[in-house]
């Protein structure tokens, strides 16, 4: 059987997406070290600069939760419960360390419980503030500094600022490639489907940065040169919401006479959309990018002028996506029990109502089996747009 390391382009992305841990196990067998992390907030530049391959721990909608339910009640985020389950059941058995984070309340608690169960050789927790005041940025920088020092101590290596700058450039390069990839969906019909895009992005979360970037270059060339594959459809949709760990929801939407052409999710643009500014002290750039620039509802931004100004501060960047990708409808997707996204729903809906962009809120249970009733609602929504 061919190793994933030798595969190329879209074939590789699909294979890595379908067998997500295979490449990581191959790399570990070669002596590489793997660092698990949660959410889009841990600064991966430090992780890779100190020799680890970052792996974003995600749950799966494909498998029922078993042992985790003996530790966490069922009203907690199903993705986190699934992530814990995969760990306890030994499915993710290739980690050399774990970076937890206070991104939302449940992820904070999950981080502790995950390490309590897994007892990995390296563990560090990043306390990410919810606000973006000046002291919060300083605090974030301090947290990143402590993470760096902990990892330096663990590895016995010292990370020079120049080396970190180089690493930031490498990550920014990958981000630029992902933006190019997303750009292929601006035309109508898009050159790349929503399902394909999600497969590619999810596979990137399981690959070394350089390997992922090489794969992205191959994919971009491949897609540009292949015959038009995606059909023109009535709806060009943007998908906003909680992380997607499988393509099933996008498949369901795209089977309903719609193309998903853009997203605002943290296994998508939130993760890859923004560069780290190259600052004299690289930690300044990292703190700003990961706390302030990264737009997730978990971060609170004061806007004192009016509710309209508040909405603009929270959702204005999505409106730009809508314009640039010629979106004519928005799916607001959230897995059940995600409070962070749940509180946003009326405000974001009102914002896009004001802009004349219809939206549909879909709450799902994070299981494959519960998607059928949602499809009927998506079909009705697409028909309404048409």
């Amino acid at each position, binding site marked *: 059987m061919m190793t994933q390391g030798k595969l190329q382009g879209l074939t590789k992305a699909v294979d890595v997406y379908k067998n997500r841990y295979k490449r990581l196990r191959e790399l570990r067998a070669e002596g590489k070290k793997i660092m698990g992390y949660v959410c889009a907030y841990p600064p991966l530049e430090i992780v890779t600069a100190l020799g680890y391959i970052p792996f974003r721990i995600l749950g799966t909608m494909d498998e029922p939760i078993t042992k985790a339910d*003996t*530790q*966490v*009640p069922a*009203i*907690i*985020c199903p993705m986190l419960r699934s992530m814990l389950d995969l760990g306890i059941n030994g499915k993710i058995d290739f980690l050399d360390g774990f970076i*937890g984070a*206070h991104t*939302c*309340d*449940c992820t*904070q*608690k999950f*981080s*502790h*419980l995950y*390490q*309590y169960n897994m007892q990995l050789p390296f*563990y560090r*927790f990043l*306390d990410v*503030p*919810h*606000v973006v*005041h*000046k*002291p*919060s940025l*300083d*605090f974030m920088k*301090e947290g990143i500094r*402590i993470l760096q020092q902990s990892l330096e101590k663990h590895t016995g290596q010292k990370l020079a600022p120049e080396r970190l700058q180089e690493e930031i450039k490498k990550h920014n390069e990958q981000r630029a490639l992902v933006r190019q990839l997303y750009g292929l969906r601006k035309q109508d019909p898009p050159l790349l489907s929503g399902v394909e895009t999600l497969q590619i992005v999810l596979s990137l979360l399981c690959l070394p940065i350089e390997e992922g970037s090489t794969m992205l270059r191959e994919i971009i060339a491949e897609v540009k040169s292949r015959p038009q594959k995606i059909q023109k459809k009535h709806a060009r949709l943007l998908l906003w919401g909680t992380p997607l760990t499988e393509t099933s929801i996008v498949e369901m939407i795209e089977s309903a006479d719609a193309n998903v052409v853009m997203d605002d999710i943290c296994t998508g643009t939130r993760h890859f959309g923004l560069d780290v500014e190259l600052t004299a002290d690289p930690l300044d750039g990292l703190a700003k990018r990961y706390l302030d620039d990264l737009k997730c*509802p*978990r971060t*609170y931004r*004061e806007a*004192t002028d*009016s*509710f309209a100004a*508040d909405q603009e501060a929270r959702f204005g960047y999505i409106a730009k996506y809508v314009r640039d990708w010629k979106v004519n409808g928005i799916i607001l997707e*959230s897995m*059940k*029990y995600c*409070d*962070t996204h*749940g*509180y*946003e*729903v*009326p*405000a974001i*809906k*009102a914002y896009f109502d004001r802009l004349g962009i219809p939206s549909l*809120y879909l*709450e799902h249970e994070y299981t494959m089996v519960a998607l059928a009733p949602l499809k009927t609602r998506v079909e009705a929504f697409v028909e309404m747009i048409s």
Partner: protein
Amino acid sequence: MIAEKKKGVITRLESAGLVRPLVNKMYSEGNLAAEEGRPVAWAMVNWWEGDIIMRAMGVTPVYPENYGTVCASDGIVQKYMGVSAAEGFPTHLCGYAQNALGYTTEMKKEGQVPPDAPMGGMAKPTFMLCSEGMCDARYKWFQSLRQYWDVPIWTLSFPHPDFYDLQDESIHQINIDYMAAEIEGFIAFLEGLLKKKIDYDKLEEMLANQEKVFQVWWEINDLRRAIPCPVHGRDFWTMMVPCLYQAYDPQTLAVYQAVYKEVKERVDNGVGALSEERYRLLFAEIPPWASLGFFDKLAERGWNFVAESMGYHPPPPMELPGNGDIKQRIARWTYWFYISHVYRASKKGYYIAGAAQPYYNWAIEYKADGMLIHPVVTCRTATFWLTHTINVLKEKLEIPGLSIQGDIVDITLFDAASALNQAPAFEEAMDHFRQVRKTKGLDW
């Protein structure tokens, strides 16, 4: 039959009755302030990080979380939750939040406090004060209210160090410095909004009172280690309110001093809150406010609740070093409240349980026989650790746990009758594990 029914019923503290006027004052003062044109803030519980600053600036805080319990007891919460859902808010959100979102929608529609709002409702805020502390609802909910109240919002910062970090002394000062810097920002925000300067003498006076309140309220709870326990959880839930919301107030100090006196007398005379204390239990975390009578039924069986509700306890006497700067002191107390259980346990040599540490400590210090947990359908924060906690207590201390699901406001979700049916079997488990603990050398 009558004598048997009375057996085990809770002997409530007489001095606990002194708390009621304070609570009434808290509920009425917001409306009074609004009538008199003084600023009113809708505030989250902030564990003393912002309250005395507001008070020193002449702002009267009202607490929508608390108002959720009022609406739950009144029964109107179902209406407000329905209104919230009709506004598009998911029904799994915090029950208190759903209540406030529904209430606010009605208030905006009516153009005044809704006529059916219990206890005179909540006056329109001048601004809103969120807290990052411990749960996401406590900043997201007010952010959601922004579409109804076009008023400024401030969010108080609250570091969440990992439990594994709490033994690292260097982390603490970083966190406190951050909080103090954010408190400075909050003061500047208030000064700008209210166009006046804070009175630091008044703030100092309030902080000094607050520190005394912490001390005496902590001592009261420490006395509950006595066997039999002199104060049942029912009295705790009544008495915790002034410390959490009115620690600045000299009246609160006077009430707690009276409570301390009564509790000390009970301890000195071997008097318990139950005539026959058969079992000593811990409770986590938020009780079913509208069904507290359930605990009376358990008291009839000799179940005494000796420690409970970590989030409602005062911080213990301060052990963190630090300077006398008032912003640092305010920050230090809130931070100490958050970390003290793990910090103190590690010093005592029984750091073991991470998030379950508060209950682990109490299980040892209060000699608990069992633990009752109340998973709350609309509160992930209070519910996340519950299963883990009873697992840890069972694995490490041979203390069994019982889980009874309910909610903080939705009274339809708590089934007291079926819960009571589980009591006899759980008593057998508590009896059994008493024996097991003895064989393992545990001293209770």
